[in-house]
């Protein structure tokens, strides 16, 4: 659909009323002012940044300590190697969380008194692990479980992945449950009256709609997990953050942290953009013709 104003501008000047010309002049002036104000505010921000950051007595030192290109280049390979471990852990943890969290969410939405113990356990689990700081879970799992002496020695990143799955499943299960509960009950009723079993209803009707409703929240949790993967280093694994830390201890320079930080941004960025695109598409579809 072409907006009415564009259609009008095709007409010759003679057809346009004096009032419309007046309006156009006003709009032009307004947009000129907007451009002017945005220019001024940008310049003011630039001046403020210069005054507050660049023009400080310590800026040269900060630049040297946090943004040394030579050190960044020197330690980039080792940090990148560490990031590869992060990505591996993230891959397995994400799969684990998807499975385990769905299971918990489904258990929490089960109806019927016979499932009470399961529902209770699932609720207790989500309460406990959402409250427990990840780093403590890491210590308990990474140092506690091996001390039992019943497991063969496995790499610290494996214990770390288990701790991540335990913690993040609790969050994601709650997000998924919220999504499932937000699906209109009529969908469930309709599915059951079509002859679908409870399991089929869940799999074919409730879950697909529920997940769609909470996609942004799920991606938030994923990005958050991506960063928390770095905590696995407390168990001894050398990930990107630890590699940066080692480099920092070597040089007494903080640049490696910046390098690691930017690498994390780089791996999360495509996903963030993808979610934005997905939710925009979903909005277009769901609100078709309904925009006011």
């Amino acid at each position, binding site marked *: 659909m072409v907006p009415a104003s564009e259609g009008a501008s095709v007409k010759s000047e003679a057809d346009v009323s004096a009032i419309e010309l007046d309006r156009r002049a006003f709009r032009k002036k307004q947009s000129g002012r907007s451009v002017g104000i945005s220019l001024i505010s940008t310049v003011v921000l630039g001046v*403020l940044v210069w005054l507050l950051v660049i023009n400080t007595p310590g800026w040269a030192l900060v630049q040297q*300590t946090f943004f040394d290109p030579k050190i960044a280049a020197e330690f980039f390979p080792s940090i990148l190697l560490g990031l590869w471990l992060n990505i591996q852990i993230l891959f397995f943890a994400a799969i684990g969380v998807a499975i385990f969290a769905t299971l918990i969410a489904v258990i929490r939405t089960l109806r019927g008194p016979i499932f009470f113990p399961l529902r209770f356990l699932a609720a207790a689990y989500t309460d406990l692990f959402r409250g427990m700081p990840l780093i403590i879970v890491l210590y308990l799992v990474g140092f506690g479980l091996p001390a039992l002496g019943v497991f063969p020695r496995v790499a*610290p990143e494996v214990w770390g992945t288990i701790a991540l799955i335990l913690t993040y499943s609790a969050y994601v299960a709650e997000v998924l449950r919220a999504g499932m509960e937000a699906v209109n009950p009529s969908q469930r009723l309709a599915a059951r009256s079509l002859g679908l079993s409870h399991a089929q209803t869940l799999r074919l009707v409730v879950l697909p709609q529920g997940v769609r409703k909470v996609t942004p929240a799920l991606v938030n949790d994923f990005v958050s997990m991506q960063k928390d993967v770095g905590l696995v*280093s407390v168990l001894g694994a050398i990930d990107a953050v630890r590699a940066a*830390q*080692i480099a920092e201890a070597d040089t007494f320079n903080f640049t490696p942290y910046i390098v690691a930080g930017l690498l994390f941004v780089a791996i999360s960025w495509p996903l963030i953009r993808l979610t934005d695109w997905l939710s925009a598409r979903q909005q277009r579809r769901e609100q078709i013709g309904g925009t006011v």
Partner: protein
Amino acid sequence: MSGLRPRFARAATILGLTLVVASLAACSSTPSAATTPDSHGLTTVTPGKLTIATGQPAYSPWVIDNKPQNGEGFESAVAYAVAAKLGFPKKDVVWTRTTFDGAIAPGPKNFDFNLQQFTITDQRKKAVDFSSSYYTTSQALVTAKGSPAASITTLDGLKGIKIGVAEGTTTYTLLKKDVGGSNIQVFNSNDDAVLALKSGQIDALATDLPTAFYLADAEVKNGLVSGQFADTTGGDDFGILLAKDSPDTAKVTAAVDAIRADGELAAITKKWLSTSVDVPVFK
């Protein structure tokens, strides 16, 4: 048109205010620490007091019971000896705590000098100042009797076991060079490495020799220092850390040299560090 004027006036006011605030902020960010030397000829954080930093927690045998102010433990004793040479009696010494990162971060420091087994290296000297060395140590391996690591005497043998090391140390650099990479695990602290050793996640942990003796003695059940690493550079030199280009570096160095020259440092070392025991060197 007249309706616009108050708005512009308001915008101008806001602009003016932000500029004033900004210039104030710029002024206040100039170093506020004392810049003139006090009666001791030192430029200290608190005039008349010497503020010394160590880690939190501070470990034996460097500081006993995590109480540096009791003067017990090697680094605590060294700190008081250096302070005395600088003209600060015990009552004028104030202790503070910093993390490893906090000690080396740029910007104003909350300590005059910092000692927590900082190894002096040329790379690190680009970021901070060091006094002359107050102790030189080699790196050693702590394990438990009966562990597969206990009987290993060669560097090649060490490649087959899991070794833990605390981050922020030069020990990791040495291990990586001598033993290789993939079997080394890096922990936040020696405490975590000991935990990993106890739970069987690693076979041995590497640290400096005095700490190794302490850990084998007090922390690890049936602990044992199984060997030390030969170092062509003669070991790690621990230095007192000061802010980069600190006006006090030369005086602190002179004080460390003075306690070394008059035998006090040797006496402190003898009292707190038991490194004279023979530990085999890995070949």
